[in-house]
């Protein structure tokens, strides 16, 4: 308490003590809030169409998409761990892997949408839920890719180090969250019910 007491000094000292905790808590609260958004749409699907499924569902593509996204979560994790150990080259490679896998996922969603438009368009009740849920998730994947791109670029420019990589940690947590939401959406649309 007997240290310097100018407002700026107190300000920066306080900032250093709470900032990491505040960042983490803020992100977790955001993800908790997002969980409510996804659960609203997932429960809507069960309310309006139960566990009904259309006859043509591209199960193979959906499984492939799931694997792509799960793999990208592993590479994202490896990127974060690499930065925590100051391993720039591995960080670089794993971030790119994650971004490419995310982009492939979006391409897959595009293919899926294209098929869905003929098999169960949006003006059928399953189609409504399908386009809504997959669209919402794809939007999150897109924002995740953009955020990963920003962090990858800043990491490449040398903005982060082992003791200073909150943005990497944050964006990777977000990416895991997006992955987790897919793990809930995939069975909701593809696995429950059916003939």
């Amino acid at each position, binding site marked *: *308490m*007997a240290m310097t*007491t*100018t*407002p*700026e000094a*107190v*300000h920066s*000292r*306080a900032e250093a003590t*709470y900032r990491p*905790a*505040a960042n983490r*808590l*803020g992100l977790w*609260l*955001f993800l*908790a*809030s*997002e969980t*409510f*958004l996804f659960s*609203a*749409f997932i429960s*809507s699907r069960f*309310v*309006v*169409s139960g566990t009904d499924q259309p006859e043509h569902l591209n199960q193979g593509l959906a499984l492939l998409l799931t694997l792509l996204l799960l793999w990208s979560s592993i590479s994202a994790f490896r990127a974060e761990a690499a930065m925590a150990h100051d391993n720039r080259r591995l960080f670089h490679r794993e971030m790119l892997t994650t971004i490419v896998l995310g982009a492939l996922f979006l391409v897959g969603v595009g293919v899926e949408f294209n098929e869905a438009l003929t098999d169960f*368009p*949006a*003006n*059928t*009740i399953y*189609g*409504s*839920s399908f*386009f*809504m849920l997959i669209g919402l998730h794809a939007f999150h994947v897109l924002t995740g890719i953009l955020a990963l791109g*920003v962090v990858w*670029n*800043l990491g490449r*420019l040398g*903005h982060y180090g082992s003791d200073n990589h909150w943005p990497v940690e944050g964006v990777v947590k977000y990416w895991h969250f997006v992955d987790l939401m897919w793990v809930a959406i995939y069975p909701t649309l593809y696995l429950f019910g059916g003939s």
Partner: protein
Amino acid sequence: MRQLLRAVIFGILGYLIGATLTWLVRGGSLGDEVCVVFGYVVGLVGWLFGIGMGDTWVREWFGLPARESDVTGWKRYLGFSTDHKVIGVQYLATFIVVLLLGGVAAMIIRFELAQAGEGILNADRYNQVMSMHGILMVAVAVAAILGSFGNYLVPIMIGADDMAFPRLNAVTFWLIPPVAIGLLAAPTLGSFDAGWTAYPPLSVVNNGGQILFVLAVTTFGLSSILGGLNVITTIVTMRAPGMTWGRLPIFVWAAFAASMISLLTTQFFAASLVLIAMDRVAGTVFFDGGAGGDPLLYQHLFWFYSHPAVYVMVLPGFGLVLETITHMSRKPLFAYKAVVVSLLTIAGLSVIVWAHHMFTSGMAEYLHGPFMFATEMISVPTGVIFLSAMATLWRGKLWMKTPLFFAMIWIFQFLMGGVTGIFLADVVTDVSLHDSYFVVAHFHYTIMGGMIFAFLTGIFFWFPKITGRMINDRLGIIFALWLTIGFQLTFLPQFWLGTNGMNRRIADYPDQLEGANLFSSISAFFLGGSFLLLIYILLSAARRGPKAGDNPWNASTLEWQVSSPPPEHNFSGQPTVVGHPYGYGTADSRHAEFAGMTAVGLAEPEQAGTGEGGDNE
């Protein structure tokens, strides 16, 4: 100013680019709803970029240093300021204006309802004005206290120098102007007439203004969510040394509970509105019964947020009122721990009561009992809060200034609202009262009585802190009485009207109800007039009120231990909290100490309570 101008230009450009590109890709007309949707979204991004995100976050995303705004003085209030006190005042001013706009709509409604039959408005126009009044006032109720006092007071009360995420805080505020513009621009597309609840199927098939409603209110929801996130993070991580959870001022607890609700449940409102938008523009059939959809789905999603939302409205109000009562009756807050438990219990229960709005909707009957029971459970913690307010006043040394006047009137108002609510929570009576003016009177007692009166309590109590000047107390009390009498005369007859068969949301009513309606309308104009006095009181006090000094109420919490208005980083040293915030009447009770400053806390409790404390008047 430069930022604001840039934001407006980027916003307009964004709208034009978004709408035009959509039009080029898709054909049709530029006024189509799809074009409006994309125009609004791109316009919103442009607005946020222009107002300050472009200077700060976006530059940092590309590895460039942020350009901080270096504006000083009153111009800070028109720009991207990250100071929580500036943002609090921005919220305060914005929502007083929105409150007045909503009030004008209310006056038009009462003018139309003064006589049976078609008056100045036809039935469609009436529904549009009523919907506008509803959504503007709901926006005020949700964000006015949490946005203004939540931002202004929470960091100072817990001994922090700002919110946890100052830039996010600024963004949260600057999301509000597009909401206002979106809502007020709706008449250009034919306005919206589905009420603030926007039930389908009407909201899927009505005029194009509904899409602006959907976009604006979704943006508002985003602002609420981010604001709640910021408040919670601030409270959890930035409390001063010694500020344990048991020493938090009660308003901080109330803001915490309300923020939990808005952080989590607002997503359901956003979801329900997004589904409306999809049904309107993307051809989905969620609410189209013919294609297998279910309009009741909307009501479930909507009320899952919108019932808890009433606690987002009133919980911070509870906090402001209890703060004022404990400071101005010079007694420790009665049953502090029970109040905290009650606030959190209300927040928890609020998410399992939503379907009491749907007793007559045709939902499954077996749901009636549980929802009735859960709803009535809420009266228990609410009763605890009433008990605390009454018992704190009991045998206190009441300092009858305007804030305490408002706080005591609030007790009566919310009691009226609460007691009449029991009839609406009960299935048997609700079946008859649903959608009648009884409901209108009830929620005006709870929301206007419970939230606006608490808001006014807060304004009159913290005005000296925010502006450094005192309010004319005599005028304040005249205003309080004027408003309260006008309020009773306006809304008491509406209980009677409701039980006698007057429906809400309809421009016309049976002729025999004309007398009471005319009485209610005249009283409403009397009530509305009182707000002119409020504006006069606030403006004249801000310009030439007597200097307030640091602590005119001789209050104990941290915000009163710094200058009025507080300095840039709130405290000149690091405050250390050493005791309970409301140790009035207890020997040697101290709330906080400051490094390098004289110890403060309860300077001289005896001095206050006589009405002579402070240097006002």
